């Protein structure tokens, strides 16, 4: 009896040790200021090891029962409480696994910026990792908020690494502002949840029964707060600015992991801390999620900056995850526990997948950036020839995020769609109306994601180099390749062994929904509900594919021949064609721009046909900025103008204020 208990305690100690380890690394980075080379070769690999360690802790946490501990720091009545249960364990695995690949890549990536503020960067980087881990471990509101803001703050400083550029400063400012407003609303949410008399541990929150009204208030506040971090439309505006601004490994971590911490928080508050769930929350979340997904993917399709494109696609994925969240809520409140379990599994699975493929894609763009110094797709192309490793590994990520079998992106979408098909018989008729539309939207988003990825990959890696300098682009170094290799392998394995993964997710699902999937199937065949209902066998699929390809190749070579002649591209006999005749990123965006013109404000300047150096600039702005944020800014400006009127320098008037206040109080306040 006692032995497992002690074991758990140790697990949590180890987790906390991992956090401290990262903190120590960050601190020690400052002392290596003088030795940038050593810094990169030593600190980052060590950090990567830490990530691996944390992932291991997470796996252990999934297997062991929940354990908690109290740290000697924090507020007097409120020391830091830590807790490691299945939910935090799963996200720890996500964090560690993704961070490992990214950090290994970083070890290579940051060599380029030796001489820069590398020491500070390394410090903030590890502080960021530690902060995210703490968010997952925290078991009281104060610890959670501290970790949450440390995460935001460190990432802010990382985003503004290159603070000489005004746009980057603006991006960082927008990011930190929205993060802070979100944090305050989280504070309010915890204020509602607290048991009163200043007890903020999650345990008392679980115990404290909240009236439905206040529960809804807390949920909405939490949705706002976490949505601001996750990039939920219309709180997403910072995301496409901040993620591209950061150094690529950072973009990878922010997109791949940090957004997930918001999902973690949402799950924690909704299913763990709140005593009840209400149906309309689910509908709201579902609607918001679908809007976000569609919005994100549409804007991803019209971007012409590769990191920006990926950032928008992150918004899309968050949208899908949120939709799954909403669906889980609906099923939960409808008393369809098994379906809730299914959607939750899809949610977690997709979160994990996104961490891998989005991390992979971002570090891929990092290597491209590193090799070419170019982010604008209009100046890239044909890199598959000069940097094959990067290209082929990125291809895995692109196919995975496009949701193509047999990679991992497909599995989670498959699970989610299955859930949609199981909906008939919900109590509210309106849900029965909503579900098909929702399913259609998800499908549409997935299809558009494929469009986006073909655009991304084709323009950046295929075709003719749009810039002669690109022919000399050098391949990524070994650390970078290793990092991408790890992440790519993750995408493949998660795609090929869904049953095992789902078994690992099982404790989390049981903890949150109190239910388990009706069936999982064997290692080969994934049958989430029942064999008759639906089945998917990626391994068989892959084998079949391989067999057919092999046979075909064999047969073609045997029966006929393998002779190949090389020549100039035919291109319908057009002789002098050059790289600028290829479709540009803008060109690829054009149809989408036409179809979904309502969402965006298009600005473009088209060159004069006789221009020798023609320049084309097409820019599709986000209308939300105009419709939501501009008015808010104007309103504040107006109000502050009015407030300024009070302060007009005349002492007599100031005396009048005091006088009036005095009289007023004498009249009314007695």
């Amino acid at each position: 009896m006692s032995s497992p208990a002690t074991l758990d305690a140790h697990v949590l100690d180890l987790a906390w040790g991992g956090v401290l380890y990262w903190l120590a690394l960050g601190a020690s980075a400052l002392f290596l200021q003088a030795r940038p080379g050593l810094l990169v070769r030593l600190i980052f690999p060590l950090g990567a090891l830490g990530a691996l360690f944390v992932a291991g802790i997470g796996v252990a946490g999934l297997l062991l029962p929940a354990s908690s501990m109290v740290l000697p720091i924090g507020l007097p009545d409120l020391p830091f409480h830590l807790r490691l249960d299945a939910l935090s364990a799963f996200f720890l695995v996500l964090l560690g696994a993704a961070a490992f690949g990214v950090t290994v890549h970083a070890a290579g990536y940051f060599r380029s910026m030796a001489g820069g503020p590398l020491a500070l960067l390394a410090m903030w980087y590890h502080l960021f990792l530690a902060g995210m881990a703490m968010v997952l471990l925290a078991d009281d509101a104060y610890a959670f908020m501290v970790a949450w803001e440390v995460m935001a703050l460190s990432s802010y400083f990382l985003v503004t690494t290159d603070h000489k550029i005004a746009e980057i400063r603006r991006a960082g400012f927008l990011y930190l502002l929205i993060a802070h407003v979100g944090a305050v609303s989280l504070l309010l949410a915890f204020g509602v949840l607290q048991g009163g008399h200043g007890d903020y541990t999650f345990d008392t929150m679980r115990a404290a029964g909240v009236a439905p009204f206040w529960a809804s208030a807390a949920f909405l506040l939490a949705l706002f707060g976490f949505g601001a971090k996750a990039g939920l439309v219309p709180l997403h505006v910072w995301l496409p600015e901040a993620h591209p601004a950061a150094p690529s490994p950072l973009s990878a971590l922010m997109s791949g992991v940090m957004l997930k911490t918001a999902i973690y928080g949402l799950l924690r508050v909704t299913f763990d801390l709140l005593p009840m769930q209400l149906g309309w929350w689910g509908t709201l979340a579902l609607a918001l999620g679908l809007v976000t997904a569609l919005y994100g993917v549409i804007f991803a399709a019209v971007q012409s900056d590769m990191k920006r494109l990926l950032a928008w696609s992150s918004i899309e994925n968050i949208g899908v995850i949120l939709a799954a969240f909403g669906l889980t809520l609906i099923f939960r409140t409808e008393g369809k526990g098994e379906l809730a379990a299914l959607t939750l599994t899809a949610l977690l699975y997709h979160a994990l997948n996104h961490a891998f493929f989005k991390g992979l894609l971002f570090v891929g763009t990092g290597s491209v950036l590193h090799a070419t110094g170019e982010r604008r797709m209009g100046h890239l192309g044909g890199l598959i020839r000069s940097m094959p490793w990067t290209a082929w590994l990125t291809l895995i990520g692109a196919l995975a995020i496009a949701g193509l079998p047999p990679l991992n992106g497909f599995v989670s979408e498959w699970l989610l769609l299955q859930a949609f098909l199981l909906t008939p018989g919900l109590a509210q008729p309106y849900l029965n109306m909503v579900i098909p539309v929702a399913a259609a939207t998800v499908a549409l988003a997935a299809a558009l994601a494929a469009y986006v990825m073909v655009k991304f990959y084709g323009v950046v890696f295929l075709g003719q180099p749009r810039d002669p300098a690109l022919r000399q682009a050098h391949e990524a170094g070994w650390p970078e390749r290793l990092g991408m290799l790890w992440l790519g392998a993750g995408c493949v394995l998660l795609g090929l062994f869904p049953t095992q993964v789902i078994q690992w997710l099982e404790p989390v699902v049981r903890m949150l929904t109190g239910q388990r999937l009706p069936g999982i199937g064997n290692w080969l065949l994934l049958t989430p509900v029942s064999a008759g209902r639906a089945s998917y066998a990626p391994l068989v699929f892959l084998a079949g594919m391989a067999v057919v390809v092999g046979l075909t190749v064999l047969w073609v070579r045997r029966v006929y021949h393998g002779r190949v002649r090389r020549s100039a591209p035919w291109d319908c006999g057009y002789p002098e064609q050059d790289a600028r005749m290829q479709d540009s990123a803008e060109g690829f965006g054009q149809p989408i721009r036409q179809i979904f013109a309502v969402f965006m404000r298009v600005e473009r300047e088209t060159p004069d046909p006789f221009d020798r150096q023609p320049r084309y600039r097409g820019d599709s702005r986000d209308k939300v900025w105009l419709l939501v944020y501009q008015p808010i800014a104007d309103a504040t400006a107006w109000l502050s103008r009015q407030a300024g009127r009070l302060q007009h320098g005349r002492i007599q008037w100031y005396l009048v204020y005091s006088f009036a206040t005095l009289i007023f109080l004498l009249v009314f306040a007695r």
Partner: protein
Amino acid sequence: MMALAFHLQVVNLLAALLLLISFAMLSQRRVVGLVTLFAWQGAALAVSTAIVAGTTGQYHLYYSAALTFGLKVIAMPWYFYRLVRKLDVNRVVEPLINIPTTMLIGILLVIFAFNLALPISEMSGTVTRSTLGIAIACVLLAFLMMITRTKAIPQVIGFLSMENGLFFAATSATYGMPLVVELGVALDVLVGVFVLGIFIFQIRETFDSLDLKHMEKLKEK
């Protein structure tokens, strides 16, 4: 109810006088006139303090009476006269709001003050219960005067006559604060006036005028 003892009637008379002087100050346009009125107010205050001291045997009030006399009747007026002559700022100054309106507001304030003081003076154990309302009225009127004046010195005088009101409240309503406090307050007032003197010279030499309208630069653009 029986007629009050003679000295109390005197105190009430002086109270009325204070109020009257406050009104007079409100309506006074010339700086020198203001200073004179201020001196008279001080005198009235000193006398009433002395009477209260005599009747109630609160002998420490004699000190404060003397203090008042010395400071507010002799020292400060003399100082202000010098200032005015030196800086030659003794011309007619139009207040912000015209006199009649100011008067009207003043009347309203007095009524308000009396209503305010009524419940309190009911429970007052002191002989001079009704004077508290007058004291409040004086304070408010002085406040009003500070608001309406656009020159530095009148504002200062308004400030000081406010202190007069306070003193009067202290003496008449409570037979005076503890001596230490009285002394401390007096000291503060003295230092305050001294500092003000320095100020007024600085202002004068910086803006070569004591008009407050030069001092409206610090504001929200």
